[in-house]
């Protein structure tokens, strides 16, 4: 919040209203159809990625260049952070270059919010720890709206979010928005990867029956995030929760497959399915540009309201 009470950036999908979401989806699809974007020539966005990312960072770079902005990459590996500078000093130093926007990715929850509090510069959360990844969720809903024709057409669709829901920032953000759109979400995965407290209304299933769902949303299995004592046996996971060729034989032509990437073929999903008729995975990547353009426009124009 700034002094006028307006929210500055985008940190969580929890605080997004349905109206905000509809506006961002509509605008993203307009831009994807070639409607001219606003122009922010001469303004800078600093991409501060404290955690490795290729897709998200490139997507933001392309989106901001389409808007006429200059994207400045803050390279963590060669930065003073590696030399022990505090993260707050880093934020303040970067802010002194007067960017119009920060895009922050971190392995810690809550860093984008702190960047904004420390600097007053609007900040977009491009994934923070195991907390949220709201731009991914917005682009996912946008992709679904394009596929099914309208946001109303999403109502009562069945969505399975499959995998390590507990440690997934994508699942946290997407569930929120999917429920807002009237999608009936189920979490599918091993018991130790299910949240215990949040989303009490969302069903948990420990078996993956693909034919029950209109939307199969596969999460990346984040082996590195699993804490000691919860070691995952890859083969066991695959036999229960991967979208294998065998399991995919039950998929009908209306069903769609999604994945936030990066995809490791043969882990969550077998390679041929990634480019199948049912898959929206490539389209998610294409839409991400337009969706993020819409988000940046809205933030720079101050049109996302609480």
């Amino acid at each position: 919040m700034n002094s006028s009470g307006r929210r500055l950036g985008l940190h969580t999908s929890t605080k997004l209203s349905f109206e905000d979401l509809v506006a961002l989806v509509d605008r993203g699809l307009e831009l994807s159809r070639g409607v001219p974007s606003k122009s922010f020539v001469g303004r800078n966005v600093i991409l501060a990625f404290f955690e490795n990312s290729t897709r998200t960072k490139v997507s933001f770079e392309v989106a901001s260049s389409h808007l006429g902005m200059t994207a400045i990459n803050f390279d963590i590996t060669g930065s003073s952070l590696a030399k022990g500078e505090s993260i707050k000093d880093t934020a303040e130093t970067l802010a002194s270059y007067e960017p119009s926007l920060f895009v922050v990715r971190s392995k810690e929850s809550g860093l984008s919010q702190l960047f904004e509090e420390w600097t007053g510069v609007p900040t977009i959360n491009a994934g923070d720890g195991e907390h949220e990844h709201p731009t991914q969720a917005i682009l996912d809903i946008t992709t679904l709206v394009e596929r099914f024709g309208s946001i109303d057409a999403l109502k009562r669709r069945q969505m399975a979010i499959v995998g390590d829901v507990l440690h997934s920032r994508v699942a946290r953000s997407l569930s929120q928005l999917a429920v807002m759109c009237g999608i009936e979400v189920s979490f599918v995965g091993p018991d130790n990867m299910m949240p215990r407290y949040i989303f009490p209304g969302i069903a948990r299933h420990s078996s993956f029956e693909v034919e029950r769902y209109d939307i199969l949303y596969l999460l990346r299995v984040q082996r590195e995030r699993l804490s000691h004592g919860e070691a995952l046996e890859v083969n066991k996971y695959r036999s229960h929760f991967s979208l294998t060729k065998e399991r995919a034989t039950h998929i009908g032509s209306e069903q769609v497959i999604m994945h936030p990437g990066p995809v490791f073929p043969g882990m969550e999903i077998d390679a041929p399915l990634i480019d199948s008729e049912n898959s929206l995975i490539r389209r998610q990547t294409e839409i991400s540009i337009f969706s993020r353009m819409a988000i940046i426009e809205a933030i720079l124009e101050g049109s996302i309201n609480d």
Partner: protein
Amino acid sequence: MTEDRFLLKNATLFDASGLRKLDIRLDRGVVAEIGIGLSPSVSEEIVECEGHLVAPSFIDLHTHLREPGGEEAETFLSGSIAAAAGGYSRVVAMPNTEPVPDSIGVIDEIRGRTLRLPITIDLAASITKGRSGQEVVEISELTRRGVKFFTDDGNGVQSAMVMRRAFEASAVSGAILAQHCEEESIMASGAMNEGELGERLGLKMISPLAETVMVARDIELCKAIGGRLHLQHISTSRAVELAVEAKGGGAAISCEVTPHHLLLDESYVGSGNSLFKVNPPLRTVGDIDGLWRGIGSGAVDVIGTDHAPHPRWKKDLPFENAAFGMVGIEESLSVSFLGAVRFMERNKGYLPKADVVTRSIEQLCLPDLSIEEFNWLIKIVDLLSIGPRRLLRLPYEPLAIGSKVDLVIIDPSVRRKVSTETIWSKSKNSPYLGMELPLAIRHNIVNGRMIVRNRSVEVERYWR
């Protein structure tokens, strides 16, 4: 007029005998006369106490003074000033310092730095050498050399066998074993309380079981082996239940709660404000109510601050990376009292067991407080003042002529807003910044000297 003779007029005095309304003549820290309508002499300063509560100055069994090794955050000097401002005459300094006070050599060396301060600083020794949890220190030897309090605070002693050895030594020496109740194998390496909010924020969580399992284990050890067990900073209602049960069976177990756990619940963490990161973590409102019922029933023995200063750079971090702990020794009375007020709002009609409040409460009642508030205030002062004296086996008999006594004068009419400017501690990592708190320590008379006068610490006069 000399600087160490006072006549406290019209004091509502609370001490181990309960409540009385009277005048107290204090000569160099010793009660010279006590009674109604004492007439002033020219050689003494008159301190008007009408409407104020007077009690023995507070003792904190749980203060992090950071010296030696952490002087960037706090020192004996700065921490003792903060403690004085909070109404304290004595604090027990926690041993998570560098070096760790785990031998008489180290303790003697550190002790030398504390002796000239206006308040008393007791050094706690660690339970295990280097606080590593492996080998018990020479508890009997250290006890003979004046150490009463042992703790690995910051970490619980994980090995039951090591703790058993410590209890064996405590049973012989009478040493207090203060346990940081956290069983590390049960989700203890997190950042906030296990529950809906922590999961929504995607933070690693600390299970209430980490506390209750350790409490249950140590109660069993204490009952079987003997010795004295002090449960530090109890934060869950279940731990209180376990302690009540054990104390009913006659084991030498005492219970400490902190002011912050009596007021703040986990929702204060908000979207990840690291000023509210503390260990044990802030819990639920249900836990807060459980702690208050523990106080009301007499199960809780002391309020200990767990005053934990940190420099800014250790707090200006994402929640998971920020240091645990908050300062609070200056606000312990106010924060506890505000906690009681909130508890009363949630639990109308519930009152603490009236073991101290006399029948003539109306006459003694301070005009700024309701009878319910007065009851809770007395109970809180009991836990800040009398409770720690009982545990440390310091004198706490009722005030009488010849008693050597430190006195704190509490003003219930004041409300004050906390800011970095009001905090005396060297570190400002207070969760109460911006909050308006009730009550104030008006004066604090320690060793015959008024080290806090009109809410201001006499630093120039007594800390140079």
